[in-house]
């Protein structure tokens, strides 16, 4: 599969754009700040979907575009947050983790341009959307807030139920989308006989 950035065509570009916008729109209903200094958000659902639907490179690109707009001062994070401050705040690592998370989701879900199947989608959304994001987010949060990594991980566990729920939702949505609109998953998918 060659979906590296240098191969992006116009259709890839617009898909990346609309997914960056989807991640922004999923932040509109508002965040419920609870459990840790990182507000709960439906935006991680958008990150998982970007990886699952667009694949590794395009999914990560959608997250990068979204984050660049946040850095440039648009209040697109849930709760109307944005600006350079969020990239040095407690949730900075989680935001950067989204990029790698979407990439890993795409890698696993679309393993060599294969069509998504439910178990690989669930696994990918969990490993990429939860595992990778936490693995980058927790150490950075610990560094920023001064609370040791172990204790930070304990406070972050409060998000685990929500993130598991989002993994399930992302899996169901991806499979439903695959049935309803397979074109969404990109230029001709090689269906293996």
């Amino acid at each position, binding site marked *: 599969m060659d979906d590296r*950035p240098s191969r992006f065509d116009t259709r890839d570009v617009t898909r990346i754009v*609309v997914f960056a916008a989807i991640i922004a729109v999923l932040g509109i209903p508002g965040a419920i*700040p609870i459990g840790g200094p990182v507000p709960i958000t439906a935006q991680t659902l958008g990150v998982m979907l970007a990886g699952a639907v667009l694949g590794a490179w395009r999914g990560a690109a959608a997250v990068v*575009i979204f984050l660049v707009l946040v850095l440039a001062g648009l209040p697109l994070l849930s*709760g109307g947050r944005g600006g350079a401050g969020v990239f040095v705040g407690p949730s900075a690592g989680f935001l950067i983790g989204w990029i790698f998370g979407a990439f890993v989701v795409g890698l696993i879900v679309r393993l060599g341009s294969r069509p998504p199947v439910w178990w690989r989608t669930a696994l990918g959304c969990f490993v990429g959307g939860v595992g990778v994001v936490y693995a980058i987010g927790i150490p950075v949060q610990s560094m920023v807030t001064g609370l040791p990594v172990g204790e930070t991980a304990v406070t972050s566990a409060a998000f685990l139920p929500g993130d598991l729920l989002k993994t399930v939702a992302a899996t169901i949505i991806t499979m439903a989308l695959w049935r309803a*609109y397979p074109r969404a998953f990109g230029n001709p998918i090689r269906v293996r006989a």
Partner: protein
Amino acid sequence: MISLYRPGDSALHRLPAGPKLLIVMALALALSLAPADPWLLAPAVAGVAGAYLLAGLGPRDLGQEAWRLRWIVLVLAVGQIFFLPWQTVAANAGRVVVVILLANLVTLTTRTERLVDAIERALTPLRRLGVNPGRVALMLSMTITTIPVIAGYATQIREAQRARGVPLAPLAFVVPLLIMTLKHADDLADALTARGVD
């Protein structure tokens, strides 16, 4: 799209966006890596307050910006108070607030377009790796115009479901939203191709 930018004509406003972002982010990073020591924190608070004044943002604005961080502080403090002595918790929370206030100074004094331009210029060396800065700039501006379109789809779907008496179900909401959005992406692609953007 409402940006977090505050118009003004101070020295900080006039500083070019790229260097300003770099310098302030480097300072913020250094401050957040430094130990949360009250002796270090006090001059940092004074420095940040001074910088806000220099940017033409008075104590009112500074207070407003700090007030926006109330949830972060509250939640951070609640999370730490079980593990650390309260003096440390206060110092940690203070440091986080100072660092965020400092970094937000860039956002408050720089137009979004200027920052986007600076980021685009910073991408130029990545051309070798196949990143096309012009295309990135196009994608950034397209995303800004697409967000309201998709927010409109979301409202449309919600209203249609309410009209049919469907209870608010996240799954029944996101799937149609994605399909409408991806169709919109294909229309956009056709429009770009028709205008000769390869």
